[in-house]
């Protein structure tokens, strides 16, 4: 009996901090979202679901939700496509594989803030190298039509490597015998890709899609530093909107409601994706 309890002591430190820093705040944020709470005026009043009702009629919320959905969908789709291409390439045998893997990991490993600053300079309308290389004149970050796409492009650069590395790991687990057998049976490259490679890495593809979708949906720093959500809110994501409500206008009640909506969306997306994953077969 004594030994039985002792085993659980190993979990205790982790459980305690997780309770304090994730579980308790999650309960508290629900409470905050049901209050009208303005930090500057020291106002705090229970208002039920009023914040959520207001949210449903708040056009800035819907714009942010649309921007977030667009950002998530386009960047994850591009990252998966390009990442798969890179993974297939890196899976071949060539000299300097280790070096190449390090090179591919670089964008993933550098701080997001740094990559946002790098791209802000690349996109610069007057002296940016992108306009110079393409010999065009686009105000990437200053025009509502381009700002969000510019953020997507940066995210694709930064995160495709992560996708590629995970898919590569799955590719390397496919036994060579399978390929050999297929070739003996006369299967061509495309057929092998379709019948062996993709079905074998399908579980990893799902892991990557779920990871990346949830990560992209809560995007904050990449867009916040690159565009600040502008111009005119054209690249404002839900996380940025919630952050601005909380820490610029200090509306802790409504801001918490919007922040909670990110959590609810992420939860719903997870459920949908896991259902889809369970039903999927190649």
């Amino acid at each position, binding site marked *: 009996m004594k030994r039985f309890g002792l085993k*659980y002591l*190993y*979990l205790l*430190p*982790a*459980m305690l*901090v*997780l309770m304090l*820093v*994730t579980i*308790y705040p*999650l309960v*508290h*944020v629900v409470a*905050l979202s049901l209050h009208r709470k303005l930090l500057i005026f020291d106002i705090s009043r229970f208002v039920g679901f009023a914040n959520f009702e207001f949210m449903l009629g708040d056009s800035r919320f819907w714009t942010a939700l649309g921007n977030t959905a667009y950002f998530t969908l386009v960047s994850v789709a591009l990252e998966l496509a390009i990442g798969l291409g*890179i993974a297939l*390439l*890196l899976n071949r045998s060539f000299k300097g594989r280790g070096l*190449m*893997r390090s*090179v*591919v*990991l*670089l*964008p993933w*490993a*550098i*701080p*997001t*803030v*740094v*990559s*946002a*600053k*790098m*791209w802000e*300079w690349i996109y610069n309308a007057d*002296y940016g*190298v992108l306009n*110079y290389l393409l010999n065009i004149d686009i105000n990437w970050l200053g025009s509502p039509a381009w700002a969000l796409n510019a953020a997507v492009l940066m995210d694709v*650069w930064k995160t495709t490597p*992560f996708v590629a*590395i*995970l898919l590569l*790991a799955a590719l390397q687990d496919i036994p060579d015998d399978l390929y050999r057998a297929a070739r003996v049976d006369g299967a061509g490259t495309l057929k092998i890709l379709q019948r062996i490679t993709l079905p074998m890495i399908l579980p*990893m593809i799902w*892991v990557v899609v779920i990871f990346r979708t*949830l990560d992209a949906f*809560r995007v*904050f*720093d990449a867009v916040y530093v690159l565009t600040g959500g502008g111009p005119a809110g054209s690249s404002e994501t*839900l*996380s940025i909107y919630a*952050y601005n409500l*909380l*820490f610029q206008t200090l509306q802790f009640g409504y801001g918490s409601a919007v*922040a909670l909506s990110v*959590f609810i969306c*992420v939860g719903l997306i*997870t459920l949908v994706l896991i259902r889809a994953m369970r039903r999927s077969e190649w």
Partner: protein
Amino acid sequence: MVKRGAMYLLLLVVALFCTWPILWQFITSLKPEAELISLPPVLPNKPTISHYQSVLLESSFIAALKNSFLVAIFTTLISLAFGGLAAFALAKLNLIGSSLFLAAILSISMFPPIATISPLYVLVNSFGLRDTVLALVGLYSTFSLPLSVWILTSFFKSVPDELLQAARVDGCSTFQIFYKIMLPVCMPGLIATTILVFIFSWNEFLLALTFSVTEASRTVPVAIALFPGLHEVPWGEISAASIVVTAPIGLLVFMFQRKIVAGLTAGSVKG
């Protein structure tokens, strides 16, 4: 032969795709002020290290570097200690409901940090820890804990039970088994976790932006995002600062590429 040539060409394209923004930042950091606002030339005519000098002489940037190192080191220590203990129990002590616990931890790692930032703000303030390195260490240790637990559990599980039973027969207590056998045997896993947690805390922005108000706790990502510019944006210095911050991470990537990949895949495969 042609096929191999095409493959190496594609590899070169991928390598350039991954590195060119960093290379451009490096080139920018070497350009004198006058050449920053003209293109061409692409490469600096008169390369200069003056941006590096002004960044490294800037006391606030040095303070931020120091804070970042402190936060990253202590976060890594705590996250590994707590995560290691939990992972050991989950992997080897036959706990009831250990897979449930792992699933719960995984879903916690999927929490969008923005969702709990307002209560955390209240919490940190009530402890009087706003604008302290300690607050960031506490938060980062917890936010990186799921990662540590998850990766270490998968490494610990791969240790054969016979090894532990043999140690038990030799008279080792459970805790001795943990630190005399598990930890040394799983050194690669510990290194992988260390690097991933270090990178996470070195790069984190949202919490740092929220909780660090002054130089007392400001970390490098926040310092770079809020880079002081009196008149126009000081691109030369921002690039120099970016290169300085990227260097330690780049070094880690080139030294431990294999470990990082092992950590990333251990963290995701069981999902």
